[in-house]
C-alpha cells in the first residue's frame, strides 16, 4: 500500500509473482463460482450482496492482524482476547441500558479500556517469549476464552434480555441485538437495488479504520513498527525501543479485534458468548494470508483482497454446489482451503528478517 502509484507495469509483474500459486488457484476458483452461479440458477445479485455483507462483518477482524504482523509478532492467533474485550463492551453497554445505535457507540467506548489492559498484558507476555509468539498466542486465546466462560456465568449481569430466564443470572449463549445495535452501521446510507444490498455504513466504517491504519503506518511510529517487523536488530541499532513498539502493535491488534467483533455482531444480529470466540482467529488469519500477506508482511490491500476472497468462497460454495450437484461440500472445502493456506504460509521461509 505504501508503494502505490510508481512504475505500475513493473509492479504488476511483481504482484503476480508475489501472488503465489495457492492464491491464484483460490482467485480462479472464486471467479469460476461467480460465473457458474447464474448458470446453475443462483441469483447473482443476492450472492454478491452476501459477499459484500460478509465482508463488512469480517473486514475489521482481518484488519486486526495487520499491526502484529507488521511488528514481527506473527499472525495473531490470540485474536479471541480482543474479541473478549469487545464482548465485555457489548454486554456492559446493554447492561447499562443503552439501546439503539447509541449502544454500539457505548460498546466501542467501554471495550476500549478492556482492550488496552488485556492488550498490554498480552503484549508484555509476548515480549517475554519472542520467537514463540504464535503458539502461545493460540493458547492465551484459548485460556482467556475458557476463563471468560466462567465469568459470563459469574459476573453480575441482570439485564433480562441477556441472562437466562429461569435462573435470572448468567448470560445466555446467544443474545439477540434486536432493539440494540443490530445493523447499526449497515443501516446508514444503505443502498438497495433489486436484490443487491450494500451496507454502506459498515463498509465506510471499515474504510475509516483501514485508512487510519494506513495513515498510522505512515507516521514515525508506524514506520518504526514496520522496521521492527522487518529486522528487529536493525531497529534496535537505530535506537528504537523494540519491546515498546511491539507492545503498541499488540494493543492495536487487540483493540481492532474488539471493534471487529462489535461490527461483526451488528451485522450478524447476535452476540455469541462462551465458546464462540474460540476459533474466530483462524478464519481471520487465513483470510489475510489468502490476501497475499506472509507471516511478517501484510498490507491493507491484503486485508481487502483476502476478506473478499475468503468470504466469497465461504458464501458462494454452499449455494453453487447445492444448486449444481445437491452436495454441500462447502464446509469441508472451507476447512481445507483456509487451513491449507495457513500451512502454506507457515512453511514458507520468512525472507530477510532473521
Amino acid at each position, binding site marked *: 500500500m505504501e508503494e502505490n502509484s510508481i512504475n505500475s507495469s513493473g509492479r504488476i509483474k511483481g504482484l503476480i509473482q508475489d501472488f503465489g500459486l495457492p492464491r491464484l488457484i483460490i482467485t480462479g476458483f472464486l471467479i469460476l463460482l461467480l460465473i457458474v452461479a447464474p448458470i446453475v440458477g443462483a441469483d447473482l445479485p443476492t450472492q454478491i450482496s452476501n459477499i459484500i455483507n460478509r465482508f463488512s462483518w469480517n473486514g475489521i477482524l482481518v484488519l486486526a492482524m495487520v499491526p502484529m504482523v507488521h511488528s514481527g509478532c506473527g499472525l495473531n*492467533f490470540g485474536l479471541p482476547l480482543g474479541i473478549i474485550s469487545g464482548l465485555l463492551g457489548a454486554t456492559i453497554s446493554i447492561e447499562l441500558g443503552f439501546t439503539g445505535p447509541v449502544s454500539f457507540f457505548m460498546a466501542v467506548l467501554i471495550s476500549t479500556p478492556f482492550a488496552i489492559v488485556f492488550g498490554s498484558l498480552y503484549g508484555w*507476555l509476548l515480549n*517475554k*517469549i*519472542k*520467537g*514463540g509468539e*504464535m*503458539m*502461545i498466542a*493460540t*493458547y*492465551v486465546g*484459548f*485460556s482467556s476464552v*475458557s*476463563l471468560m*466462560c*466462567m465469568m459470563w*456465568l*459469574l459476573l453480575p449481569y441482570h439485564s433480562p434480555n441477556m441472562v437466562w430466564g429461569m*435462573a435470572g443470572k*448468567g448470560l445466555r449463549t446467544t443474545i439477540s441485538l434486536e432493539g440494540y445495535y443490530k445493523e447499526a452501521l449497515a443501516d446508514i446510507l444503505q443502498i438497495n437495488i433489486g436484490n443487491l444490498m450494500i451496507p454502506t455504513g459498515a463498509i465506510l466504517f471499515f474504510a475509516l479504520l483501514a485508512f487510519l491504519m494506513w495513515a498510522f503506518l505512515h507516521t514515525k511510529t508506524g514506520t518504526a513498527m514496520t522496521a521492527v517487523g522487518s529486522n528487529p536488530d536493525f531497529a534496535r541499532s537505530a535506537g528504537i525501543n523494540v519491546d515498546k513498539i511491539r507492545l503498541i502493535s499488540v494493543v492495536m491488534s487487540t483493540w481492532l479485534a474488539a471493534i471487529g467483533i462489535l461490527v461483526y455482531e451488528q451485522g450478524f444480529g447476535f452476540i455469541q458468548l462462551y465458546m464462540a470466540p474460540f476459533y474466530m482467529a*483462524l478464519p481471520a488469519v487465513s483470510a489475510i494470508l489468502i490476501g497475499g500477506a506472509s507471516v511478517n508482511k501484510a498490507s491493507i490491500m491484503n486485508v481487502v483482497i483476502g476478506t473478499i476472497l475468503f468470504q466469497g468462497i465461504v458464501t458462494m460454495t454452499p449455494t453453487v454446489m447445492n444448486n449444481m450437484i445437491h*452436495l454441500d*461440500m462447502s*464446509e*469441508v472445502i472451507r*476447512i*481445507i482451503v483456509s*487451513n*491449507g493456506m*495457513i*500451512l502454506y504460509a*507457515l*512453511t514458507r521461509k520468512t525472507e530477510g528478517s532473521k
Partner: protein
Amino acid sequence: MNKTNLGDIFRRFSVPLMFVLICAVCAPISGLSPSYLANEIVTRMGRNAFLILSLLIPIMAGMGLNFSMTLGAMAGEIGLILVSDWQIVGIPGMVLAMIISVPISALLGLFCGKVLNMAKGREMITSYIISFFINGIYQLVVLYLMGPVIPIKHSNIKLPRGYGVRNTVSLLSMRQKLDNLIPLTIAGVKIPVATFIVIFLLCLVIIWFRKTKLGQDMRAVGQDMEVSKDAGINVEGTRIISMVISTVFAGVGMIIYLQNMGNIATYSSHSQIGMFCIAALLVGGASVDKASIGNVFLGIILFHTMFIVAPKAGTVITGDSMIGEYFRVFVSYAVITVALIMYETNKRKNKSRAGEELARAQEEENEGAA
C-alpha cells in the same frame, strides 16, 4: 548454586504441585467416594495412557508437543469404522482395525514430518494447523467418499442419504473387550488387566527404543540439528521417522481409547484428543523438550482426578454445574499455556544467563586489573 537448583526444581514441578493442590481441595468438596474415584482413574488410565505415550517420541526428537497426533487418531477411527461395517467384532476387530490404521497413520505421519521439516522452529503451531487441515481431508473421506467410493453397507453406519457416516458409530461389539479380557477386581476397583499389559509393553518398547541407534540419533537431533548433521546423521529423515512412529502409536492408542468408550463420535472424537493428551502430559511435569514415562502416568492421575472432581466441586460451591465444567477446560488450556511460556522464557533465560556470567567474570578481572 544450591539455592538456584532448589528453585529450578520447584519451578519444574510447579505444575504437578499446583494440580495436587487443586485435587486435594476439590476432591473432598465434590463428595465423590474414594472407590468411585479410584475406579474412574484406573479406567481412564487404561483408556488414555497409550495415546499419551505416543507423544513422547517427537519430544525426544526435539519437535515439541505433537499437536498432530490427531492424525493418528483419525486413522484409528477410519480403521474402526471399516471394521464395524465389515462386522468384525471383539478383539479380532480391534486387531484388524489396528492393522488397517497403521499404513494410514504412517502416510499421514510422513506428510506431517515433511511439512514440519519445512517449518523448522515453528513445529508446534504448524503441527497444530496440520491437525485442522487433515481434519478437513478426513471429513472429505468420511462424509463424502464413504459410501460411493469406499463401500459402506450397514445402515446403522451409513447416513440414509447414501453417502457419509453417521455422527456416532456404535462399537458395542467390541466395547471394553480388551479391558475385560482378563477380568480382575481388587477392592471394588475393576482393573483392565489386558489393556495395562498392552500399555506396559509399549513402555518397554519406548525404553528399549531409547537404547537403539535410532533413539540415540533422535536425541542428538533433538538437541542440536546442526551438529547431528555434521556428524552424518540424516536429520530430516530422523525427524520424519519420529513423526511416523508417533502417529502410528496414536492410531493404535485411539483404537484402545474408543474400545473403552464403546462408540465413535465420528466428527469430534479426535478433534480434541491431542489437546487433552498434551495437557495431561504437561500436568505430569513434562515440558516441551523433556518428557518421561513417569510424567505420563502422574499426569493421567492428576489431570483426570481434576477432570472428575472439578465439575462436582464447582456444582457444590456455586450451585451451577457449568462452572466446574468450564473450570476444568480453563485449567487444561492454562496448563498448556503456562508450560509453553515456561519453555520459551527458559530458552531466553539460558541465553542471558550465559551473558551474565561472562560479564561478571570480566568485572572481577577488571577489578583485579584496576
